[in-house]
């Protein structure tokens, strides 16, 4: 270990935040760039399954809520890209990687949203799973990322409660058809939500180093268990079930036991073979490609304005 490395690790161990101007190991920087950009991409790609229903939201109230949520997500994307840029990464390059299939985003967004209750279930389960991850990330060792997480977590919790409320209202005051939508949404999204925490700890080779660097603070399996433990009581309160016959409370462990995740599906979706992978990337790529002239116009105009100001000065 070099002196800088030792110094860096001591800071991390002492829970002192690493800042952009501080020395950091290359691996730390790369891991963070990868992780933050994935997170940013997920916010942006995550707008698409919601965009599928924002035009069909069934009341003004729900439409406004969903629009506000989508707006927040665009905001989160921006903070996160900014946090990533403090590490010297370039936003456009990272987005290009996304479009080339070289960068990842949360696999959950490769599943389609098929009924209105999905807007509730995405808020409750997907944002819920994200929060479990993110709450821990508020204490992540990299300062700008940690601070972005604090801000994002607040809004995500709001989204999660709102999502849960959508489901609760439908279960309490809805017709049978609406109740069926809720159960159907949970059936489809439950397993993909559990997959959001990533592979088992022993299949997650980079996790160890990330734990030492305190980029990661809890293991995939720990986080998954936390999520299940907090979610099942909420599920029962809804009066719904999850599609897992093995799910039951284990008094001894003090946790819920649950069935095996279909890891083949997990890796399939990761490789691009999910229901909507092609469509999601194609939509994002088209947006950015079609928008090139718009961004170029803004740059050209700014340059002209500067030139004029310089001349005038």
């Amino acid at each position: 270990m070099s002196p800088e490395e030792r110094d860096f690790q001591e800071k991390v161990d002492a829970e002192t935040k690493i800042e952009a101007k501080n020395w950091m190991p290359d691996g730390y920087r790369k891991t963070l760039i990868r992780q933050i950009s994935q997170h940013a991409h997920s916010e942006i790609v995550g707008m698409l399954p919601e965009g599928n229903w924002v035009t069909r939201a069934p009341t003004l109230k729900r439409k406004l809520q969903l629009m506000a949520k989508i707006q927040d997500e665009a905001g989160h994307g921006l903070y996160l890209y900014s946090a990533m840029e403090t590490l010297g990464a370039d936003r456009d390059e990272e987005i290009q990687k996304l479009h080339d299939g070289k960068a990842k985003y949360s696999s959950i967004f490769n599943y389609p949203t098929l009924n209105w209750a999905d807007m509730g279930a995405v808020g409750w389960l997907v944002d819920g799973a994200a929060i479990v991850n993110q709450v821990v990330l508020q204490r992540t060792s990299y300062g700008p990322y940690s601070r972005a997480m604090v801000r994002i977590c607040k809004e995500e919790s709001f989204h999660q409660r709102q999502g849960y409320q959508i489901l609760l209202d439908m279960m309490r005051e809805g017709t049978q058809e609406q109740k069926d939508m809720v159960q159907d949404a949970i059936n489809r999204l439950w397993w993909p939500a559990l997959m959001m925490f990533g592979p088992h700890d022993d299949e997650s080779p980079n996790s160890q180093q990330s734990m030492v660097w305190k980029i990661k603070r809890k293991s995939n399996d720990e986080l998954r268990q936390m999520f299940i433990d907090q979610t099942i009581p909420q599920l029962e309160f809804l009066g719904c079930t999850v599609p897992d016959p093995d799910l039951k409370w284990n008094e001894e462990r003090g946790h819920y036991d649950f069935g095996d995740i279909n890891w083949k599906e997990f890796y399939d979706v990761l490789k691009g073979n999910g229901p909507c992978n092609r469509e999601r990337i194609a939509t994002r790529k088209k947006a950015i490609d079609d928008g090139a002239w718009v961004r170029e116009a803004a740059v050209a105009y700014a340059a002209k304005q500067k030139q004029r100001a310089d001349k005038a000065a």
Partner: protein
Amino acid sequence: MTQQEVLQEYLLRLADSDMILGQRLSELTGKAPAVEEELAVMNVALDLVGQARNWYEYAAELINDGRDADKLVFLRDAHEYRNLLMVEQPNDDYAVTMARQFFFDVWHYFTLKSLVNASDERVATIAAKAVKEATYHLRRSSEWVKRMGDGTEESHRRIQDAFNLLWRFTGELITPDEVDHAMFKAGIGPDPEQIKQDWFGMVREVAAQATLTVGEEDAWMYMGGKRGEHTEHLGHILAVMQFLPRAYPDATTW
């Protein structure tokens, strides 16, 4: 029409125009040309649908036939909608999206600015909040028109094409009909002549800065939205927007 019926009609025009433009903008979710624009587009859409809700709620109270704001939005067919034809035009490229926004924003801003002084207190209150949002919308769309007009060759061509394409829908913004006249007389609506002058003044000024040419004042204009005669687009917008409440008529809560 009684004075109140005229007001109801006028409120629906404001509400429907906000609503349909908000709907069009929300179609852009995840499809804007930059992440910053995702945020800005949704922000404007959110403001507009929020304003629409305020107008609908007031309209529903006056109409007083058991329909609430949601029912007005989700259970009227195209011929009952009173929005301007401009706002139902497709997003097309971002130049068309922005030209549509700009032409609308200029009208919207001056209209709301006048409505702040409406003799009807409720109208004045809603307008007072809305005009702040509309001021930002107008600043943003004006800036984009200038960026595109005085940006690159391609952006200039595109925004000029968009101006030409949409010009025929501008007449409706500034051509008063009996409802507009009646609302002005009642001390609620703006002076139609003033709106027209202000609209042209602002549009010409921004266009000049953007190095764009605008159409003729006496060009042929496509109108009809304010009396419920729309373009073919509105029916398709409503088919999507109204699907759930129509498909599940027994659902009272969502």
